[in-house]
C-alpha cells in the first residue's frame, strides 16, 4: 500500500497524548489540589439539623405537674408536590378560609417550590387526629410535631412565665446558642432557669438530594450529637393554694404573697388581675398577647415583685422592732393619744385615741400617734448623731429585713421598693434643712416609703422566725442538680434581739384576737397579723393585711394587698386568713363560708 503522508502518522497520536495529559492535569487540579470542591460538595448535600431537647417539666411542692410539654402539629406544604386538590375539603378540615389557603400557598410557591413552608401553625393533637386521617388526599402537605408548653392548672402565669421566640438581641448575646426561631423562657421561672430548663440542643447531619429531601444520616450518625433534655424542677408553689388565691383575688387589683417562713419557699404568689398561661401558647398566642398588653389593668405586670406600695400600718411591727433594738422604745413606753399626732402645724390623724400602755398595745390598736412619736425618737434619740445619720441607720436596718433592697427571689426584674435616706431628703430639701418632723409620715408607713408585696410577706416571715429569713424562692429543687439552689438561697439574720420579737408578736396576736384584724380569726389557729390602710395618690386607700400562723410553729406568712379597697380589715384580712385556713386546714370551716363567698363575689373593678 502506498502511504504518501507517512510523516503525518504520529500527529494524531501526539494530539491524543496531549489532550489526555491536559485532562489528567486538570483532574489533578480539581480533585487533589483544589479543596473548594469538597466543601462545596458538602454544602450541597449536608444539612445540619438541630435536635431540640424537651424542655424541663415543673411540678408543684406536692408533686403536681404544673408545666407540661404538649405535642402540637404544624402543617407544612411543599408547593412543588401539591396536586390538584379539593380546596374546599382542605379548608374545612383545617378550619381556614379559601383566601387564606390561596394566599399562603402563593407565598409558599414564591419562596420555593421544593422547600417546605409553614402552612398552618399550632394544630392541637385532637384536631390533628382528624386532619391526619384525610391528609393522604392532599399530597404536598404534611404535619410536623412540635412541643409546646401546657399548663394543666391554668394558673400561676406570673410565676411560671412563658416561652417566646428569641429576639435578635438575645441571639447576639447568647454566644451563638440561639438561632432565629428558637424559643426562650420569658418572665417567671422559665426565664430565671432558662439555661437549666432548655437543656442542650443536639445536632444531626443529614444528606439531602437536589430537592432538599432528606435521604438519610451522614456517616451513620458519627458526627451527630444527642440533645440533652432540660432539667425538671420542683416549684415551691402549692398550685391549689395558688388557684384558691387567684379565685379570691378575682375582680380585685392587687397581690398575695405567701411564704413558708422556715425555708423561704414561696407557697403562692398571686398577681391580680391574672390570666391563663395557656393563652400564650399555641395558635392564638400573638392575638392573646396583644390583648393582654392592651388591657388597661395591665395583667402582664408582675405586681408582687414589681409594684411598690406604701405599707401603711403593716410596717408598724418592723418599726417597733427597730425602735426597741435601738433603745428608742421600751416594752412599756407609753403615749397618750389624743386622736391625732400634733407637732407644730402638722397633724397626723389616728383612728384610735386614748392611753397606750406599751408597744404591744400600740400595735394592737395601730396607733398612729404612738408610732409617729417613736419613729422620731428612733432617728433622733442618739444625741451624738444627726437626724441624717439616724435616718440612714434606720434605712440600713430596714435593708436587713429585705426592705428597699432586692430580696433575691428567683424571678427576673424584682423591684426594690423604696426607702428614702438622707441623700434623698438632702436633695429634696437641701442639706440640714429637714428634720424628723418633716419625715414623720415614714413612721406610719406612708410618705415616700414603698414596699413590694413580696417584701411585706418576707418581713412577716422574718418576724415569724424571730430574727432571720431565707431568700424567698419559687423553685424548691432542680432535679439532679442541688448545687445551683444552695448558692441562691441564703439565711439572712436581722440585727434585732429575740425578746423584742416576742413583744411585737404579742401585739400582732392581739390584732387578730381583739384588735383591728379580728375578721382574720381561724378557729383553733393562733395568728399574728397586722392590718394596713395605705393612703395613696391613686384613689381610695389600699387594703393591706400581713400575718402568719400558727404563732408557735409558723407554717405560712402572708401579705395581701388589694388596691383601692379601703380598710385592711375589709379585704386584706379576710383574703389572707382564708388563704391560711386553706393551706393549714385544707378546708374552710363552715362559719367562714360566708366570708369566702363574699370574697369570691366581690368585684371592685368597674
Amino acid at each position, binding site marked *: *500500500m502506498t*502511504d*504518501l*503522508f507517512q510523516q*503525518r*502518522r504520529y*500527529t*494524531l*497520536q501526539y*494530539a*491524543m*497524548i496531549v*489532550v*489526555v495529559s*491536559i*485532562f*489528567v492535569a*486538570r*483532574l*489533578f487540579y*480539581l*480533585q*487533589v489540589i*483544589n479543596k*473548594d*470542591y*469538597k466543601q*462545596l*460538595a*458538602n454544602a*450541597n*448535600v449536608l444539612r445540619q439539623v438541630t435536635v431540640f431537647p424537651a424542655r424541663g417539666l415543673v411540678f408543684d411542692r406536692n408533686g403536681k405537674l404544673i408545666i407540661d410539654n404538649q405535642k402540637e402539629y404544624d402543617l407544612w406544604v411543599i408547593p412543588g408536590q401539591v396536586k390538584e386538590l379539593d380546596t374546599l375539603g382542605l379548608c374545612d378540615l383545617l378550619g381556614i378560609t379559601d383566601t387564606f389557603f390561596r394566599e399562603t400557598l402563593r407565598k409558599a410557591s414564591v419562596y420555593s417550590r421544593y422547600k417546605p413552608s409553614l402552612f398552618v401553625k399550632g394544630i392541637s393533637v385532637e384536631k390533628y387526629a382528624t386532619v391526619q386521617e384525610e391528609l393522604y388526599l392532599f399530597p404536598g402537605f404534611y404535619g410536623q410535631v412540635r412541643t409546646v408548653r401546657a399548663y394543666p392548672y391554668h394558673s400561676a402565669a406570673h410565676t411560671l412565665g412563658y416561652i417566646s421566640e428569641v429576639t435578635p438581641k438575645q441571639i447576639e448575646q447568647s454566644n451563638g446558642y440561639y438561632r432565629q426561631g428558637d424559643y426562650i423562657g420569658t418572665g417567671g421561672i422559665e426565664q430565671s432557669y432558662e439555661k437549666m430548663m432548655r437543656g442542650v440542643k443536639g445536632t444531626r447531619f443529614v*444528606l*439531602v*438530594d*437536589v*430537592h432538599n429531601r432528606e*435521604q438519610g444520616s451522614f456517616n451513620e450518625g458519627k458526627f451527630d450529637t444527642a440533645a440533652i433534655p432540660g432539667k425538671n424542677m420542683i416549684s415551691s408553689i402549692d398550685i391549689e393554694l395558688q388557684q384558691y388565691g387567684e379565685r379570691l383575688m378575682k375582680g380585685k387589683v392587687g397581690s398575695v404573697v405567701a411564704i413558708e417562713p422556715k425555708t423561704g419557699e414561696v407557697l403562692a404568689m398571686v398577681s391580680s388581675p391574672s390570666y391563663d398561661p395557656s393563652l400564650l401558647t399555641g395558635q392564638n398566642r400573638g392575638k392573646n398577647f396583644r390583648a393582654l398588653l392592651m388591657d388597661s389593668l395591665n395583667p402582664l405586670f408582675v405586681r408582687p415583685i414589681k409594684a411598690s406600695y406604701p405599707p401603711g400600718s403593716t410596717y408598724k411591727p418592723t418599726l417597733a422592732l427597730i425602735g426597741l433594738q435601738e433603745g428608742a422604745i421600751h416594752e412599756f413606753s407609753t403615749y397618750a393619744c389624743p386622736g391625732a399626732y400634733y407637732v407644730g402645724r402638722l397633724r397626723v390623724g389616728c383612728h384610735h385615741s386614748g392611753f397606750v400602755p406599751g408597744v404591744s398595745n400600740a400595735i394592737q390598736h395601730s396607733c398612729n400617734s404612738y408610732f409617729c412619736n417613736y419613729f422620731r425618737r428612733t432617728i433622733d434619740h442618739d444625741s451624738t448623731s444627726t437626724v441624717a445619720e439616724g435616718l440612714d441607720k434606720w434605712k440600713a436596718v430596714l435593708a436587713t429585713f429585705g426592705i428597699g433592697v432586692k430580696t433575691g427571689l428567683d424571678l427576673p426584674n424584682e423591684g426594690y421598693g423604696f426607702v428614702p435616706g438622707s441623700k434623698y431628703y438632702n436633695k429634696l430639701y437641701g442639706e440640714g434643712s429637714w428634720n424628723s418632723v418633716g419625715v414623720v409620715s415614714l413612721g406610719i408607713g406612708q410618705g415616700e416609703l414603698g414596699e413590694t408585696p413580696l417584701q411585706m410577706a418576707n418581713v412577716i416571715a422574718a418576724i415569724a422566725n424571730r430574727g432571720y429569713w431565707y431568700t424567698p424562692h419559687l423553685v424548691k429543687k432542680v432535679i439532679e442538680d442541688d448545687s445551683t439552689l444552695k448558692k441562691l438561697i441564703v439565711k439572712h439574720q436581722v440585727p434585732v434581739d429575740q425578746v423584742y420579737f416576742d413583744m411585737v408578736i404579742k401585739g400582732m396576736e392581739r390584732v387578730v384576737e381583739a384588735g383591728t384584724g379580728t375578721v382574720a380569726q381561724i378557729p383553733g389557729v393562733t395568728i399574728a397579723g397586722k392590718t394596713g390602710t395605705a393612703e395613696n395618690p391613686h384613689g381610695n386607700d389600699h387594703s393591706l393585711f400581713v400575718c402568719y400562723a400558727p404563732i408557735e410553729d409558723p407554717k405560712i406568712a402572708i401579705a395581701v394587698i388589694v388596691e383601692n379597697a379601703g380598710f385592711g380589715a375589709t379585704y386584706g384580712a379576710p383574703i389572707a386568713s382564708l388563704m391560711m385556713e386553706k393551706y393549714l386546714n385544707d378546708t374552710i370551716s363552715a362559719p367562714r363560708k360566708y366570708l369566702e363567698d363574699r370574697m369570691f363575689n366581690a368585684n371592685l373593678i368597674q
Partner: protein
Amino acid sequence: MYQQERPVNKGIDWMMIGLYLALILIGWLSIFAATYDETQPSIFDIDRAYGRQFLWIMGALLLAGAVLLTDSKFYPAFAYVIYAVVILLLLSVFVIGSTVKGDKNWIDIGSFQLQPSEFAKFAASLAVAKYLSGMNINMKLLRTRIAAISLFMLPAILIVLQGDAGSAIVYVSFFLVLFRFGLPGSYLAIGLFVITLSILSLVMDKYLLILLLFVAGGLLLFLSRRNRSLVFILVTAFIFSSGYILTTDFVFNNLLEPHQQQRVSVLLGKEVKVKDADYNVRQSKIAIGSGGLWGKGFLRGTLTKYNFVPEQSTDFIFCTIGEEYGFWGSTVVLLLFLTLLLRILHVAQRQRSRFSMIYAYGVASIIFFHMLINIGMTIGLMPVIGIPLPFISYGGSSLWSFTILLFILVKLDGDRLAVLR
C-alpha cells in the same frame, strides 16, 4: 471462498476487545451508581437504567459477534449501501421521528427508541474510507477534497437540521482523517484560527481585536519582507478576519439557539442570566472535585446519588467515576481510552488495505472527539455539548453504534493478512 474456513478468532486483536469490555463494564457500574435506588438494589432490574443498560450490553455483544461473523469483504463492498440506508434513516426522522428534549432525532421501534444519528457515524466512516481508498484519488484536487468533505458533512448537516448540533460537531473529527491522508495542514490551521478568532471576538472588544490582528500582521510582514506571496496572504487573511469578527455577533445571536449561546457564554466566562446554564458544569466540577485522590467509593458518591448532577447517567457519567473513584479512577479511565485510541492507530498502521487503514483512522478520530468533548465538558474545559462518552454513557443507540464501529475494525484487522484490498 477460503476465508470461511478460517476460524473467526484467528487474527483477532484481543487487546482492543479487552479494552472495549473493560470500558463497558466500568460504564455499567457507573450507571448503576448514578441511578442507584436503595429500594431496588438489583443491578439487573429492568425498570432501572442499569438494568436496561445490561440488556443493551447483551445486545451489543450479540451485534459484535454478528459483525465478526460477517465476511470482512462485505464492508468495503457495501460501504456506500450502508451509507445510503443511514442517510435515508436520517431523512425519515423528519417524517416519523419523535422529539426528545427538543431534539427530533429518534425513531420509535416498539418500546425502544433508536437514534439514527448515532449509526451515521460508522456509516460515514465506511463511506469516507471507501471513497479515499478508491483508485486515482488525489487529495491535491479540490474536487476530491470537496467530495470527501461532503461525504461526512451531509449526515452532519442532516443532524444539525434535526436540532442536535452537538452530535453533528463530532463529524468535524473526519478532518483529522482527511489530514492524515493528504488534506493540506492549512485546512486544520484555518479551522483552528477560525475557532480561536470566534472565541476571542466573543470575549474581547472587536475593534481592539482587529487592531491587534493588524499589529500582528504588520509585525509578521515586517519580519519577512522578502516573501511577496505572504503579503498577499496576510492582507487577505486580515480582511477576512476583520469581516468575520464583525459578523460573529450576528452568528452568535442569530444562528445559535439560545441554549447554545448560553453554553458558549458559560465556557467563555461571560455573565449569563439563566442560572441553569452553568449549573450543570458547576455541579459536575463539584462532584468530580469532591472525589479527591482516591474517591468516595462505589455507591458512595453523594452528589451523583442524590441527583445533583443532571444527565448523570448519560452525558455526565464521568462525574460518577470522578466522584466515586477520585483522581485515581478518573486517570485509569482516561488511560484506558488513550490505550484504546493508540491501539487503534497502531492497528491502523499495520493494515495492508487502504480501506481498513482509513476506516481505522475514522474510528480513532470519532472516539477521540467524543472523549475530548464529553470529558472536557465535565471538567469545565469544553462547552456543554450533549454527546455521550463512548462505551460508558447510558443509552442503547450510542453503545450499539460504537460497538459496530469498533468491531468492524476488529473484523477488518482480523482479516488483514487474508486479502489485499
